C-alpha cells in the first residue's frame, strides 16, 4: 500500500491513502455545510471543491519542512486575497458590465466560497497534521459546521425561513427526518475522523466532539413549537380539567367534546401558551367593524343559579354548530340570514389540535369539508361560510332586541339571571349616563354596560372570586378584577337584569392587525376568549365585548408571522416560499437536474479517461524494454516481467521481499531469477558490477522470452486473456 510520509516534529508519522481520501471527503462536506446557508448552490459546489483541495494540499504542505506559521500565514493571505478579489468583481463596474450582473455575482460568490474553505481548511489541515493538540480543531470545525446548520432548527422549529426545512416542507416532507439525517451524516463524518486517527489523544478529542454533537442533536429534535398530534384522553372524569390543558381562557380550549363541559370560574387562570391551535384562511378581504375577529365555537346562555352554561333547550342557541362536516356540508339552521347588516365571508379552517366542535368566523351558517393537504400537520380541515357583521355601531342603533319568532319561554330564558337586585340597580345607573334619546335603545344600553365595565374593570388572570356563592357578583361588586369569563358574565347579567337578551360567546379572538396584511390568521392558545353577546332583531347575536382598560398581566407576545404564513401555505397546499426567496423549490430542482446532467457526464468521462490512461500505462510499461538501452534496461525489463506475472495473478504478497517472491516462483518461473538478479545488481551493486557483464541486453530479452513461455505453461489461456484485458493489472506489481 502506498503511504504518504511526512516529517512531523522530528518523528515520522504515516498515513495511508484511504484515510487521506476519507479526510478529503470530510473536508469537502464540512465546507459545503458551512457555506450552504450563506450562498448560491453553485458556490456550495465550489466550496466542496475548495475543502477537498485544502485537505490534499494541507497534507502535502504538512510534509514539507516549511514552518507551520508560514503555512498559516499563507492560508490567511490566500483567503484575504480571494475575499478582496470577490469584492473587486462585485465593485468593479467593468466586470459587471462585461459579464452581466448575475454572472458577476455568481463569480464573486464562487471565488469567495472556493477560497475561504481552501484557506481555512488548509490551515486546519496543516495544524492538525503537525500538532496533536490542534487535532481537535478539525473535529470542532465539523461539529461547528453542522451545529450552525442545525442551530436554527433547535426545539424543532420548522417555521423559520431556513433553507434546510423549507424545500422539504415545500414537497410535503417532514424536516425532522432531514435534521436527523444531517445529524447522522455529521456523526458519520466525525466518526470517519475517529477511524482515521490512530493516536489516542486525538481519538479522545474526537469522541468529545462526537458527544457534543450528539447532545446538540438531542436538543435539536426535541420538538416543541409544533407538537406532534396527540391523542387526548377521553376519560369523562378528567373532562372538568380539560380546558386547563389547552389553555382555553374563555373555555374554548381544545379537547372538549360534546355538551359535557364545566368551565367554572377560577382564581388562577393559566396564561394560554403560544401553541398554535388552528390557522384560518380568509377568502374574502373582511375587516371587522371593531378590528377584531371573533371565532365563535360555543355559547353559554342557560343560567344554572350560579353561572351560564351551554343551552339544554333545543330551541336556544341554534346557531351553534355541533358536528364537523365530514362528507357533506353541514348547514347551521339557526344562523342569521345575510340581511342589510351582514355579508358572507368564506374561510378555511385548519385545526392543529383536536377540538370538540367546529368553529368559524363570528356567525357560521354552513360548514363544508375541505381536503386535508397535510394529515400529519392538520387534525381537521373544513370550509366555513360565515355571515359576518358589517354594520358599524351607529347603524345598529335603533334596532330592536329579541327575535319576533321567539316564544315567551325563550325570551325569559335569555333574560334569566341571578336574583340579586344590585345588578338591576347598577345597570340602570349605567344606562342613566346615556344621552336621553339612546336610553331605550337596546344596543346603546348594551354598549353602555360594556363601556362601563371596560372603564372600571381591571384585567387579571389571578382573582379571588371562585369561592363565592355568586362569583360574578363577588367580582362585579367587589374589586372588579378578573379575566374575560368574569367580565363576560358580569356584562351578560347586567344586560339581562334590564331585559336585554344576552349570552356569553366562547371561542377565539384575534386582532385584525395580526394578519399583517396577509389572508391568514393564526390562532394560538392565547387567543381563547369569552365575550358577551346581545341579540338584535334582524341582526342576530352581536358581540359587545368588554376590553378592560387596566390590566395587571403583561401583554402577550406578538404572534409569529412566519409561522402564520407557513401554516397558511401548508393549508393551501402550496409550497411555502421563504420570505427571503433565495432558494425556491424550482431553483433547487433545476440545480439538481443540472448537477445530475453534468455529474453523469463527468463521471462517465472520468471513468473513460481513467481506463484509457491505465491501458496507456500498461502498454508503455510493456513496450518500454524494447526502446530502453543501457543502465535502465534491467529495471524496465524486470518490471515488464513482473507486469506479465501480475496479469496472471502472481503478485508479491504484503511484506514479501522481491528475493523471497522470486524464490517462491522459482519452480514455475525460473527465468525470473536472472531478470531479478540483473535488476538488483544494477540497483544496489557498485559502479563496476558483475551483473553488468553477465546479463547483457540479449540475456535479459532471452530471459524475458523464456518467462513468457513459462507463463504459457503455468497459466491457462483464459487466465492470460483476462489479465490482458484488465487495465489495472499493473497496479498489483509492487
Amino acid at each position, binding site marked *: 500500500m502506498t503511504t504518504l510520509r511526512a516529517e512531523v516534529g522530528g518523528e515520522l508519522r504515516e498515513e495511508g491513502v484511504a484515510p487521506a481520501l476519507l479526510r478529503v471527503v470530510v473536508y469537502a462536506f464540512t465546507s459545503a455545510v458551512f457555506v450552504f446557508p450563506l450562498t448560491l448552490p453553485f458556490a456550495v459546489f465550489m466550496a466542496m471543491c475548495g475543502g477537498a483541495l485544502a485537505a490534499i494540499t494541507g497534507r502535502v504542505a504538512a510534509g514539507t519542512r516549511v514552518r507551520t506559521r508560514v503555512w498559516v500565514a499563507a492560508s490567511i493571505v490566500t483567503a484575504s486575497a480571494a475575499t478582496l478579489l470577490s469584492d473587486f468583481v462585485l465593485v468593479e463596474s467593468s466586470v459587471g458590465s462585461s459579464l452581466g450582473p448575475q454572472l458577476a455575482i455568481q463569480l464573486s460568490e464562487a471565488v469567495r466560497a472556493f477560497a475561504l474553505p481552501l484557506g481555512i481548511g488548509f490551515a486546519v489541515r496543516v495544524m492538525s497534521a503537525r500538532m496533536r493538540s490542534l487535532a481537535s480543531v478539525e473535529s470542532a470545525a465539523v461539529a461547528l459546521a453542522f451545529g450552525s446548520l442545525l442551530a436554527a432548527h433547535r426545539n424543532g422549529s420548522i417555521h423559520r425561513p431556513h433553507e434546510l426545512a423549507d424545500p422539504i416542507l415545500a414537497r410535503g416532507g417532514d424536516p425532522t427526518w432531514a435534521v436527523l439525517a444531517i445529524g447522522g451524516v455529521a456523526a458519520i463524518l466525525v466518526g470517519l475522523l475517529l477511524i482515521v486517527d490512530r493516536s489516542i489523544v486525538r481519538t479522545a478529542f474526537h469522541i468529545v466532539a462526537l458527544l457534543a454533537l450528539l447532545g446538540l442533536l438531542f436538543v435539536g429534535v426535541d420538538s416543541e413549537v409544533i407538537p406532534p398530534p396527540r391523542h387526548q384522553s377521553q376519560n369523562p372524569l378528567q373532562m372538568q380539567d380539560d380546558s386547563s390543558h389547552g389553555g382555553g381562557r374563555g373555555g374554548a380550549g381544545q379537547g372538549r367534546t360534546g355538551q359535557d363541559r364545566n368551565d367554572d370560574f377560577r382564581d388562577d387562570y393559566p396564561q394560554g401558551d403560544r401553541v398554535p391551535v388552528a390557522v384560518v384562511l380568509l377568502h374574502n378581504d373582511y375587516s371587522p367593524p371593531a378590528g377584531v375577529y371573533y371565532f365563535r365555537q360555543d355559547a353559554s346562555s342557560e343560567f344554572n343559579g350560579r353561572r351560564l352554561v351551554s343551552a339544554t333547550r333545543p330551541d336556544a342557541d341554534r346557531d351553534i354548530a355541533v358536528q364537523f362536516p365530514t362528507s357533506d356540508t353541514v348547514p347551521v339552521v339557526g344562523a342569521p340570514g345575510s340581511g342589510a347588516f351582514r355579508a358572507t365571508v368564506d374561510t378555511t379552517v385548519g385545526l392543529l389540535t383536536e377540538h370538540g366542535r367546529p368553529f368559524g368566523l363570528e356567525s357560521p351558517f354552513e360548514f363544508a369539508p375541505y381536503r386535508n393537504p397535510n394529515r400529519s400537520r392538520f387534525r381537521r380541515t373544513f370550509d366555513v361560510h360565515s355571515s359576518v357583521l358589517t354594520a358599524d355601531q351607529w347603524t345598529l342603533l335603533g334596532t330592536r332586541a329579541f327575535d319576533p319568532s321567539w316564544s315567551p319561554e325563550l325570551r325569559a330564558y335569555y333574560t334569566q339571571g341571578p336574583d340579586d337586585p344590585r345588578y338591576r340597580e347598577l345597570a340602570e345607573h349605567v344606562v342613566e349616563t346615556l344621552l336621553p334619546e339612546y336610553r331605550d335603545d337596546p344596543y346603546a344600553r348594551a354598549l353602555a354596560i360594556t363601556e362601563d365595565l371596560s372603564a372600571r374593570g381591571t384585567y387579571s388572570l389571578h382573582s379571588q372570586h371562585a369561592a363565592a356563592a355568586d362569583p360574578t357578583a363577588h367580582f362585579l361588586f367587589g374589586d372588579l378584577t378578573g379575566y374575560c369569563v368574569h367580565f363576560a358574565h358580569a356584562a351578560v347579567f347586567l344586560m339581562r337584569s334590564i331585559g336585554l337578551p344576552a349570552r356569553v360567546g366562547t371561542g377565539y379572538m384575534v386582532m385584525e392587525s395580526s394578519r399583517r396584511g396577509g389572508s391568514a390568521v393564526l390562532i394560538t392558545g392565547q387567543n381563547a376568549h369569552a365575550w358577551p353577546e346581545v341579540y338584535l332583531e334582524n341582526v342576530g347575536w352581536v358581540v359587545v365585548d368588554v376590553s378592560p382598560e387596566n390590566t395587571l398581566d403583561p401583554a402577550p407576545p406578538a404572534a409569529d408571522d412566519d409561522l402564520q404564513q407557513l401554516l397558511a401555505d401548508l393549508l393551501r397546499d402550496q409550497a411555502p416560499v421563504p420570505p427571503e426567496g433565495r432558494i425556491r423549490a424550482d431553483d433547487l430542482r433545476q440545480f439538481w437536474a443540472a448537477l445530475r446532467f453534468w455529474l453523469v457526464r463527468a463521471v462517465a468521462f472520468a471513468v473513460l479517461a481513467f481506463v484509457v490512461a491505465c491501458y496507456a500505462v500498461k502498454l508503455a510499461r510493456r513496450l518500454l524494454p524494447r526502446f530502453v538501452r543501457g543502465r535502465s534496461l534491467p529495471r524496465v525489463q524486470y518490471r515488464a516481467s513482473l507486469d506479465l506475472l501480475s496479469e496472471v495473478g502472481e503478485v508479491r504478497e504484503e*511484506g514479501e521481499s522481491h*528475493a523471497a517472491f522470486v524464490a517462491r516462483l522459482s519452480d514455475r518461473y525460473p527465468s525470473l531469477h536472472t531478470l531479478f538478479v540483473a535488476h*538488483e545488481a544494477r540497483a*544496489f551493486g557498485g559502479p563496476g558490477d558483475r551483473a553488468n557483464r553477465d546479463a547483457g541486453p540479449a540475456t535479459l530479452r532471452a530471459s524475458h522470452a523464456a518467462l513468457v513461455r513459462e507463463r504459457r505453461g503455468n497459466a491457462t489461456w483464459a487466465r492470460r486473456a483476462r489479465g490482458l484485458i484488465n487495465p489495472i493489472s499493473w497496479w498489483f506489481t*509492487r
Partner: protein
Amino acid sequence: MNDSLMSRNSEPLSVEAAHAIALKVQHRLAASIRGRDEVIRLVLTAMLSDGHVLLEDYPGSGKTTLARALGQSIRSGQGAALADFRRIQFTPDLLPSDITGTNVFQPENGRFVFRRGPLFSYVVLADEINRTSPKVQSAMLEAMAEKQVTIDNETHPLDDLFFVIATQNPLDLAGTYPLPTPQLDRFLFKIRMEHIARGAELEVLAAYPTPHLELSRELDTVTRDEVLQVRRTLRERVFIHPAFREALVDLARGLRADPRVAQGASTRSLVLMLPALQAHALLAGRNYVSPHDLRTLAPYVFAHRIECTPGIDDALHVIDEHTRREVEKLEKAALRQTPYA
C-alpha cells in the same frame, strides 16, 4: 585490522575467491550438522564479519557439534600453536582466570610464566554463559570486545580469528545470571534455534553409528589466514549502496520512535550491521548488499538489543514490521528509478 595480516597479504582476494573459501567452510558445516542451514549461514556470517553469536537453544540441539565442526574447518596454517576449538562449560564457581589463563610460578628459573587459558583458540564455545557469575561474564565479554586478556596488568592479545559461540538455555533460568542488555550488545547475533525438521532429524539418526562430524573429515578445510583474508575482502570488495545506510538509520530511528519499544537499537549495532550485511551478501555469492540481506539479518541483530515496553512480548514482530517497511522502500525506489544515471 591486524598488522601482521596486512603485511602478509597486501591485496584482498577477489569476491569469487572469497566466496569459494566461505563455501568450503559452509559445506563442511553442512555435512556435519543436518537441518541447520540457516544457523550455519548466520554463524558463518558472524565469523566472517568479526562478530560473535549467542545461541539460545535446548540441550542436545547440536551446538557443540556446530562449534567443533567450525573449529575443525580451520587449520592453523604456518605451524601456529593455537588450538582450533575450545569449549568452556560455564558454572557458578568458575573464576576469570579459568578462562583467560594465569601466571604460574616456575621454580626452575624462579619466574612467573603466563599459561594461556581456553580463550586462546580460534573458535570458543561458551556453553551456558548465563550460568556463571557476572565477574566471569565480564571477563569473557571484555575478551570478546577487545580481543585481549589482561592478567596482572599484562595484556595478552588473543588471536585475530577469535570467534565466540555462546549459548544459553532459554527455559531453565533458576540459579542463572541473565546477561543484561548492554552485555548482550557485544553479540552480533542472537540466534534462537528451533528444533530441526523431521527429515533432517531422520538423517541424523540414519548416520548412526558414524557421526556426521567424522564424515566431514574428508572435505576441504581452510586456513586461519584464508578466513582473515575473506574478512578483509568482504569489507573492501562487497559494495554497500548508500541507500542501505539511510535505511539502517531510518530503521533504528523508527524503532526508537515506536511506542512499543522502550529502548531502541544502539548506533554500535548499526556499525556492526554493515560487515554482517557484507558477509551475508558474500555467502550468497554477491558483490553487493541486497535488501534481502537486510531483511534476513535485522531480526538477529536487533532482537536482543531492543527492549519492549511492558505488555509487548514479540520484539521480533516489531522489528519485522519496521524492517519490512524499509526493505519495501528500498525495493520500490529501485523499481522506480535506476541509480547513478
